[in-house]
């Protein structure tokens, strides 16, 4: 008989506590992000596909077309080509492409780069309709970037 009433009291009290929890969350701010319209800030540590860094002092990348990344790449997905030009010391980069369908995001190219010209990008919206959408022209990307 005692447990009959004590159950009623403890049960009823826990129900009231439950109501308190939910009414608090009713008036708390919304935490979901309405994705296509709102986007979260991506951490700089995010490892997307590789990108050439644009340096402020030169206004350009620092790739010397040594081809280390191309040789280091275990998936053979980087192509780097350069040419000699009049009056310019060293080679000038003409082609830098990444076949992201094969890339395993190991980061060996970033590690090996002697001039630290490569870095990971923050791109995460990577849906595409064809395989060719994932052949990235890294050189064009760095030139287009403001």
């Amino acid at each position, binding site marked *: 008989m005692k447990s009959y009433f004590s159950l009623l009291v403890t049960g009823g009290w826990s129900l009231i506590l*439950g*109501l308190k929890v939910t009414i608090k*969350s009713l008036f708390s701010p919304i*935490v979901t992000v309405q994705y296509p319209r709102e986007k979260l800030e991506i951490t700089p540590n995010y490892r997307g596909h590789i990108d050439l860094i644009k340096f402020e002092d030169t206004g350009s990348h620092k790739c010397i077309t040594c081809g280390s990344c191309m040789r280091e790449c275990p998936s053979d997905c980087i192509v780097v080509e350069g040419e000699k030009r009049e009056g310019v010391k060293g080679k000038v980069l003409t082609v830098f492409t990444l076949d992201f369908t094969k890339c395993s995001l190991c980061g060996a190219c970033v590690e090996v780069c002697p001039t630290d010209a490569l870095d990971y990008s923050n791109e995460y919206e990577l849906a595409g309709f064809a395989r060719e959408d994932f052949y990235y022209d890294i050189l064009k990307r760095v030139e287009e970037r403001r």
Partner: protein
Amino acid sequence: METLYSILPELIRIVICAACGAAIVFGNALVMGYAERKLAGHFMLRPGPMEVGWHGILQLVLDGLKLMGKQLVIPAKADKPLFMLAPLLSFAPVFVPLLVIPFSDKLQGFDIDIGLLLILAFASINVLAVLIGGWSSNNKYSLFGAFRAVAQNVAYEIPMLISLLAIVFMTNTFSLRDVAAAQGSVWFVIVQPLAFIIYIVAMVAETNRAPFDLPEAESELTAGFHTEYSGMSFSLFVLAEYANMFICCSVATVFFLGGDSGIPLPYFEYSGAIWFLMKVYALMFFLVWIRWTYPRTRFDQLMNFCWKYLIPFSLVNLLITVVMVKLI
């Protein structure tokens, strides 16, 4: 011709009341459908419907259009006439109780002496519709849902009636308008708090809503009695559920929260109706609130709670009320 002239005003009154009842049923379903989804979202720190119209305000209109456009699928081995009858039987009776609910002193379809009995009689037809729907679907989940609905509704009708009976003993009438008028400055929720709590609990069970939504119990029985229903026949069940919520909350408002009493609003003659609807929707909000707070009860817990707690307590409450009424 003479008789026609004499009954014509009454006929017009009936037509107008029926039209208003239909407007209430559909309007209430739109408002509550939207409010419930929106509140459900905010209880879970989500925004709820946001895409159609400003803050998703047209979502329910589009949902209604979609449901109307859907095919009515009837299972091959279902009992076809009963299967089609069940949603109609669930939906049709919800108009009648709306006729006797006193929205304000003047805003009432008909004031009849046995208004409460009328409401309770028509509200309990819903159980029959659920049983027919579950049985005729020829599906084990539907049948389980229907059995649960019957057991639950039969059990919870008893404390509901007994708690209302305490008020009836105090006011000596079944007419809803007289009950509302009987509580002048002191609402019956203060005089009869236990009856109010018992009524609210029984109301949640009667309208088959969480935490007592065992007839539907989507995690156990897919959708319970309306598993096989689609399109409009499904939405008739939903409309009936929301209308039943409205009716139960109206009865609670009339019996415990003073009906249309409240501070008269300036420049508005029918402020009683505004107060009435505000009280009803406050109770509806409470129903939504507890739906998104409590997990579903187990069936034996549900039955134990009714037979071991609600019915004894409501009987004791009735006994005390009767003694007090006799002595005072």
